[in-house]
Every structure is written in structure tokens, then in C-alpha cells.
């Protein structure tokens, strides 16, 4: 049997992708009809988009200036998530941003940064710190002891939302940086069979499951989801509540825009 994902970690054609939002306990189920960039999934993006002179925060509470384009200074962090500019993209300040007109597409993006020890986290949308410990007792992220990954992060970009990527360097070295993306530009639809949706969300149907680090359900994200897909996602029910789930999914599917 074919795997759901290929050797790059991207979802194969005619397979399912589930995107889960913890803050709402809802998920989207997408069928990947095709991958528009099949065979051309790697982008050697280049250095982090940090112009010389940019002011960054430090782990000790001060600030530091970026000494040269793309260099992340020692013991520094990017306090507000950045986007990745690319000339000619729909939004040249954020190459992963799409409008609602692109609702039949999502980007599945695996970001790798060199050096690999750099800390990474995500703000969805930009500026909203998402990870928390003990409900909202402690915010987490690159400036904390945990709540980040090192070197690699995987996500799915929903249209109409700018994602903020934050990076930190917890060594004494000013480092040159390099970013590589492995991405799939998926052409998707949402299955219209409520039993199939339940099958995916109850883990009975093979799929690739991605949890967006969203614990604070910002209004921007909610509005974007409704604008793009017509719904905020399918509630995730336990396996013994199939009938209830199917009934609700049937109603939600009437609102779905794709």
C-alpha cells in the first residue's frame, strides 16, 4: 500500500491531509487532488530576510543590531514573526500568503534553517504567541526553555493568514543563515462524504495529520477560515459519537465553499 506521504514528507496525490486546530478542537480534511509542483519541491531560499541594521531582541532583555544581511547575532531572537518576501509572488512581502481566491490551494511547507541549532516557532497569525504551558499560565516559544523546535518546522499555510516565523540563536556566535523550503502546492478539495470525514478524524482512514500551533484563536484566523472555506472546521468527536458527528458534518458540508 502506498504511503500517505512521500520521501520528502509531502502528501501524495489522492491522499488526505488533516489540519487540526487545538484551540477549537476542529480540523479540516483536505483531499490532495494533485501537487502543482511535483518534482520541484525544493526552494533554496537563501539567508533569513534580516537586513543589516535590523534591531533584534536578546535573551538578556536588551537589543542588538543585525551586523550584515542575513546574519543572526549571538544570543538574539526575532521578537515578532517574520515572513519570507519574494518578488512577483501574490504578496511580495510573504511568499506563502494567498487570498481567498486561492481557496483550492494550500501550501504544505517544511522549513529548514542552517545552522540547524537555531530555534524556530510560529505565530499564526503574525504577532500572536500561540504556545502556552498549564493553560495560559506561561507563554512558550523561542525565548523560553521550550516551546520551539530546532532547525526544522512543518506547517500548512491557510489562505488569508500571514504566518510569522521566529528564529533565535542561543550561542555566542553571530551566524550566517540559510533557509530551505520543501513545499507542496496542493490543489485540494474537501470531501463531501461526512462518513469519510469522520473516518479521517477518527484515524480509521489513512491520512497525514498536522496540528497547527494555535492555542489562541485569534479573530483574524477565525474570519479567514470562514471567508476561505465557509466553516471553522469539523469538530473532532470521539469514536463512539459517530452519529452525532456525521449529523453535524452533514450540516457543515452545506456551508463549505470548495
Amino acid at each position, binding site marked *: 500500500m502506498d504511503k500517505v506521504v512521500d520521501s520528502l514528507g509531502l502528501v501524495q496525490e489522492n491522499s488526505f491531509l488533516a489540519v487540526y486546530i487545538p484551540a477549537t478542537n476542529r480540523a479540516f480534511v483536505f483531499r490532495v487532488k494533485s501537487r502543482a509542483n511535483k518534482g520541484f519541491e525544493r526552494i533554496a531560499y537563501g539567508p533569513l530576510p534580516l537586513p543589516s541594521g535590523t534591531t533584534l531582541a536578546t535573551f538578556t532583555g536588551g537589543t542588538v543590531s543585525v*551586523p550584515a544581511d542575513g546574519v543572526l547575532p549571538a544570543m538574539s531572537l526575532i521578537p515578532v514573526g517574520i515572513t519570507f518576501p519574494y518578488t512577483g509572488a501574490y504578496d511580495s512581502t510573504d511568499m506563502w500568503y494567498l487570498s481567498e481566491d486561492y481557496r483550492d490551494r494550500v501550501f504544505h511547507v517544511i522549513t529548514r534553517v*542552517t*545552522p*540547524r*541549532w537555531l530555534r524556530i516557532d510560529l505565530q499564526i497569525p503574525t504577532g500572536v504567541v500561540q504556545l502556552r504551558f498549564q493553560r495560559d499560565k506561561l507563554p512558550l516559544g523561542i525565548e523560553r526553555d521550550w516551546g520551539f523546535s530546532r*532547525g526544522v518546522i512543518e506547517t500548512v499555510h491557510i489562505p488569508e493568514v500571514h504566518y510569522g516565523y521566529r528564529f533565535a540563536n*542561543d550561542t*555566542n*556566535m553571530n551566524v*550566517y543563515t540559510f533557509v530551505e523550503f520543501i513545499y507542496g502546492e496542493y490543489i485540494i478539495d474537501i470531501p463531501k462524504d461526512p462518513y469519510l470525514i469522520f473516518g479521517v478524524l477518527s484515524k480509521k482512514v489513512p491520512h497525514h495529520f498536522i496540528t497547527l500551533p494555535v492555542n489562541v484563536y485569534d479573530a483574524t484566523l477565525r474570519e479567514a477560515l470562514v471567508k476561505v472555506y465557509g466553516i471553522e472546521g469539523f469538530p473532532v468527536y470521539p469514536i463512539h459519537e459517530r452519529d452525532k458527528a456525521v449529523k453535524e458534518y452533514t450540516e457543515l458540508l452545506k456551508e463549505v465553499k470548495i
Partner: protein
Amino acid sequence: MMVSELLTLRGATDNTNTTGVFSLTSDLIYGSVQYIQIPKGMKAKIWCKRISGAAVEVIIEYTHNILETPPTFTEVDREVLTSTGEISLEKRRPIVLRGITGLEGFRVSWNQSTPGLSYVELEVELTDDE
């Protein structure tokens, strides 16, 4: 997912003093550093040393707190180039230095009987593997 980055570090003696600490450079480092700080939860693995030039002792020293003034460095390794030439030392089992608090670090120093120009290159992996 395991994180790993291999750094080639290079330093040279100053040809003036018989002892000193190498300033280390690398293709990934902007400028140079006198020591390498090991991120919390990661390890520095020193896989390879290449020493060349004038006779020199190359010493690797480790500290638990690079913020101390001055830090207390402890020797963990010493290699000797006994006469002008070069040696290349590759290890099946690397020197492992751990980042426990995030304040650990290591530096590379030299000792010579008479000042001379010597070079050192280290292959260092920063990793979070078990």
C-alpha cells in the same frame, strides 16, 4: 527529529606569544569567537583535529559557565605537534561536551616553547542526539 550541524572551525597562533587562545572562524560564523557556547540540551562532538605549522600543543578546555568572570576552564584534551609539520586526527569516538544549562562552552588554546605560526582546524558537530 535529530538536529545536527557540522562546523569546521579554524584558528591560528599569533606568531608572537607562546601561549594564547585561538580566535575561531568558520564559514557559518560572522567574525570570530574565542569560545563556542553549547546550546542547552545539545552536545558538541569534536570529531577531527588538524594541526599544522610550527611545533605546538593544542589544548581543548571546557567550562560550565561562560558568564563567570573569568570562566573556569578545565582541560579535556591535548594534542602535540612535536616539530614543524602537520597531523590529522580523526576519531571514531568523538570528544563529547554537553550543554546542560546552556552556559557551557569550550575553547581551544595553544602552548609553544618558542613562538611560531601554527594552525588548527576542528570538525565540530552540534547535535541533540542521544
